[in-house]
């Protein structure tokens, strides 16, 4: 139910994103989805990979600082109110969203939301209770 996400620390300077992605490309690791949180000085690149263990090893060998965290992926209808429908049960359960990002899958009319919740187990319970589709794994981006 929980997906493994890798976070990579990046400095806010030209080339640092390319370096991280280059490491993954060289190791032939596919990215399911990614998001970049940025501040004026640094960024955090968040990645969901097809093979996160191999990805972590490659990034570390490449000299990058990597942290592994658990996230949830929820599939929703790609229409107005799709996100709000997910948030309602979670909010009711008193769970906080630390961050989230979204991507559109190849499947028609569906979107996938990636969440980092303050309490993942509670969130799963709430989402399941509301009949939401919490994904076991992601498709590869662009596949």
């Amino acid at each position, binding site marked *: 139910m929980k997906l493994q996400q890798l976070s990579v620390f990046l400095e806010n300077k030209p080339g640092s994103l390319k370096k991280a992605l280059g490491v993954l490309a060289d190791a032939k690791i596919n990215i399911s989805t990614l998001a970049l949180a940025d*501040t004026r000085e640094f960024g955090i690149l968040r990645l969901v990979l097809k093979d996160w263990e191999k990805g972590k090893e490659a990034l570390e060998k490449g000299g990058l600082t*990597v942290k592994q965290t658990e996230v949830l992926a929820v599939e929703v209808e790609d229409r107005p109110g799709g996100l709000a429908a997910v948030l309602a049960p979670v909010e009711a359960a008193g769970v906080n969203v630390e961050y989230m990002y979204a991507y559109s899958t190849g499947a028609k009319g569906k979107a996938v939301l990636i969440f980092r919740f303050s309490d993942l187990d509670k969130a799963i319970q709430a989402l399941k209770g509301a009949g939401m589709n919490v994904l076991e794994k992601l498709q590869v981006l662009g596949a």
Partner: protein
Amino acid sequence: MTLEQWNDIPGTFHPACTPDFLPLEQLRQLQLQRLQATVRRAYANVPLYRKRMDEKKVAPEAIRRLADIDQIPFTVKADLRDTYPFGLFASPMDEIVRLHASSGTTGKPIVVAYTREDIEVWSNVMLRSFAACGLHQNDIIQNAYGYGLFTGGLGAHYGAEALGATVIPISGGNTDRQIMIMKDFGVTAICCTPSYFIHLIERSGEMGVKMKELPLRVGVFGAEPWSESMRRYIIDNSNVTPFDIYGLSEIIGPGVGIECSAHQGLHIFEDHFYPEIINPETGEVLPEGAEGELVLTTLSKKAMPMLRYRTRDITTLTREQCGCGRTICRFLRVGRRSDDMFIIRGINVFPSQVEHALLKVEGTLPHYQIVLTRDKGLDRMEVQVEVTPEIFGDTVGAMEGLQKKIAKALDETINLNVAVKLVEPHSIPRSEGKAKRVLDQRKM
């Protein structure tokens, strides 16, 4: 290793036979004889020394006791630059068998020379250094000091060979290969700068080599000042017992002083190097136990005798008997140099203070750099800290919190509002040689 334990080590060398354990009276007599000969030699052969002593009306014969050394003028680094390249040599070139030179970041390097006898003395003090660290002929020593003009590589190499150990002359750099050889060759001891060894620990982790499972047990670290926190990091992340080795090219290279198994300061090989502590402002000789600048006089060097050389290293000298039994005196580990202090907005700051502040914030050691800039006449200090997996939180909030915590710790330690920048691992230049902690970009 105790002296008794040495009895079980095969081979002909035994530290008890070295001047490390000489009765003090004999040691002082030896020092006086050698000092008198060195002053005579320097006066007779080096114009700069003769001129300076003549100016002060001090003849070589004025040195009747060791304490008379305070009549001799100091020598400073600029003297070596001003007499570049060979001006301080006391031997003709046909007796000189080796030249070394400093890395020289600004202008001309300084050049130092050795006769065959000098090389023997140097090998001997390095051999005694290694023995003090508990190394012997069964050890495999990876010598990661740079070979070349820098004295570290060849100095350690000759000492390790004199000891009868197996030496791997790998020199500096190529970290991945260092780790492979360390593992494959069953290396038991390493010589390098402490910051480079920390780099090796980090890199070995990334390569999946478990440093703690290797037979590596002794590290002979020197060529840069290092702090207690770096020592702690090494002890916690490897099985290596760190030993501080002290030296400078102007005096001989590495092997001027070494930490022994008691880890209560560094012994100076007093039979070859005579130490004094002075007040760096006034030049006055300070009593035992007082903190000040270390001044060294070579007692046996032929090619390039050094009279009262000002090292700029701040330390304290003690002649109290050491737990290891050595009679030669000790000085406290050098944490700072009188010239690595910088002044920002009128406040004196030592890099060691910054390190101390960083240590207060969990896990932020050891890689940092201080960058000083000047904008419209206002000095700005920025501390760049590398983000390691231990301190990396996955949210922006956690990272900004870390930045604030570091800034607060710095403010509390040096009373200065300092900018903190989090940078990627390995983005601060690593010392294959020496860690450059302060980058002063202020245009004066």
